[in-house]
């Protein structure tokens, strides 16, 4: 592993392709790190980021097959819009983790603040700890696996993708949900409008087993319940006309 010299800092992307690039955010700015990660000429495939100190927007918009390991806690919007890359955080993440993720994998070993994986279209987001309110809000295809619990209004208006919660879910889970599939092992404080418990069939157990395995979890699919849309909000009904 090489460390960027601090006396005469060079552009991180200048590191050798074979090199394992290390970026210390106590020495370099998030903007420099992100610019290096975005640089079309960059060839390094393994990055280690130290001293993140809760800074915002680390590793946002990465669009290549690289691995970025962050040692510490990150702030808002970590890994937003991620495409192809594999990102890990050894600590916790602030609001908007992996917001609008397109593909790749974002793994947080600690907790995540609100709106984790919001609007995500693809890829996998793994949170070993808890995620707070609105986890997976408006998710559009992303897979989310949470080792702990999720806060209220999680999977609000979820349109596609899968969410797995190994702990409990807060109030109004899956409010106004479309076709996302939700699997919860623990209790659900309450279900949101048009979200109902559904039967676990073999296809769901297979799907869930794959997600748990991908996230490195040891729970058994048999321990989970499935929730999804009752599909009562899909079409306008004349009975509701007086509400307008």
């Amino acid at each position, binding site marked *: 592993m090489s460390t960027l010299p601090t006396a005469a800092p060079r552009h991180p992307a200048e590191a050798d392709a074979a090199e394992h690039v290390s970026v210390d955010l106590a020495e370099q700015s998030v903007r420099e790190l992100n610019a290096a990660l975005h640089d079309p000429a960059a060839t390094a495939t393994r990055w280690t980021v130290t001293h993140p*100190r*809760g*800074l*915002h927007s680390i590793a946002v918009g990465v669009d290549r097959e690289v691995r970025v390991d962050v040692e*510490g*806690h990150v*702030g*808002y919007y970590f890994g937003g819009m991620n495409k192809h890359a594999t990102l890990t955080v050894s600590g*916790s993440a*602030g*609001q908007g983790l992996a917001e609008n993720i397109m593909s790749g994998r974002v793994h947080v070993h600690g*907790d995540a*603040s*609100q709106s984790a994986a919001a609007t995500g279209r693809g890829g996998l987001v793994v949170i070993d700890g808890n995620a*707070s*309110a609105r986890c997976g809000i408006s998710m559009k295809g992303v897979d989310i696996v949470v080792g702990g619990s999720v*806060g*209220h209004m999680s999977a609000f208006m979820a349109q596609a993708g899968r969410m797995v919660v190994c702990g409990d879910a807060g109030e109004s889970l899956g409010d106004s949900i479309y076709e996302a599939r939700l699997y919860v092992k623990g209790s659900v404080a309450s279900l949101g409008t048009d979200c109902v418990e559904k039967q676990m069939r073999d296809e769901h157990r297979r799907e869930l087993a794959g997600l748990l395995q991908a996230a490195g979890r040891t729970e058994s699919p048999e321990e989970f319940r499935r929730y999804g849309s009752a599909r009562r909000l899909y079409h306008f009904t004349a009975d509701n006309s007086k509400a307008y």
Partner: protein
Amino acid sequence: MCGIAALQIKNPEMGPQLGTLLHSMTCDLIERGPDSAGLAVYDDPQTMQGAASLVSLLGIDLPLPAAELADRLTERLEGAETTVEAVGHTTLVRSQASTDALLQALEELAPEASVIGQGSHVAVMKGVGNPREVASAHGLEAMSGTRGVTHTRMATESAVTAAGSHPYSVADDLCLVHNGSFSNHLTVRDELERHGVRFGSDNDSEVAARYVASQLEEGADLETALLRLGEVFDGFYTLVVTTRDGMAVVRDPIACKPCVVAETDDWVAVASEFRALSELPGIESARVFEPEPGRVYTW
């Protein structure tokens, strides 16, 4: 937006570091509230100077020269020694008289002065401008003490003025800071005014402070007062309330506004964002969590 930083010392040996740590926490939250700032520090010996009571006044322009005001206050307070000192953007009035007597004397001798803090343990200081400069102007870095709270403001509900800066301290040793906005504060204000409560600004957060003070005065404990606030107020909020004995945190039931708590055996800290906690000694092994919506936490 707005930024909140609060630190309560559990291990007395860390008391001398309070100001340095709180200053650093505050500077990490400047982006959240760059227009003005305020701070409250409890039990700093240099600030309290052994006074029985301390009243903080907004600004340093007084109707009388400081020395003359001090003399007249002392005289009015029947010889209880009273001093008047400009510190940064704030005037500190210290006295050996009780807080009530000092406030009454100030009302008579400097009726135009705006009281921003009062009590026997706390000094409140606030000003307009970059929070780093406001904190430095008041010497925060050099302070020690038992707990402190700072606020970096991005004005939304009322103008950018020193009077609109937090904390709001409206009863002895009670301070409140707020990140968020209340939508029914005028209704609550009307109700409080009908009961004789007077206001010093147009700020929505002052209404919350005066509501909490009125609840405490009626005998409620801090937790009960904040739970009642949740029933009466409509809006978004993370609130930190400090007293001479402790500190409380509460978020609105939707938890729109951010808040992170970190706790070790030596201290408990609250901030709008983790980055403000990232430099605290022992943060690596601290218990870090987000307060649950609508739940009151006290230390």
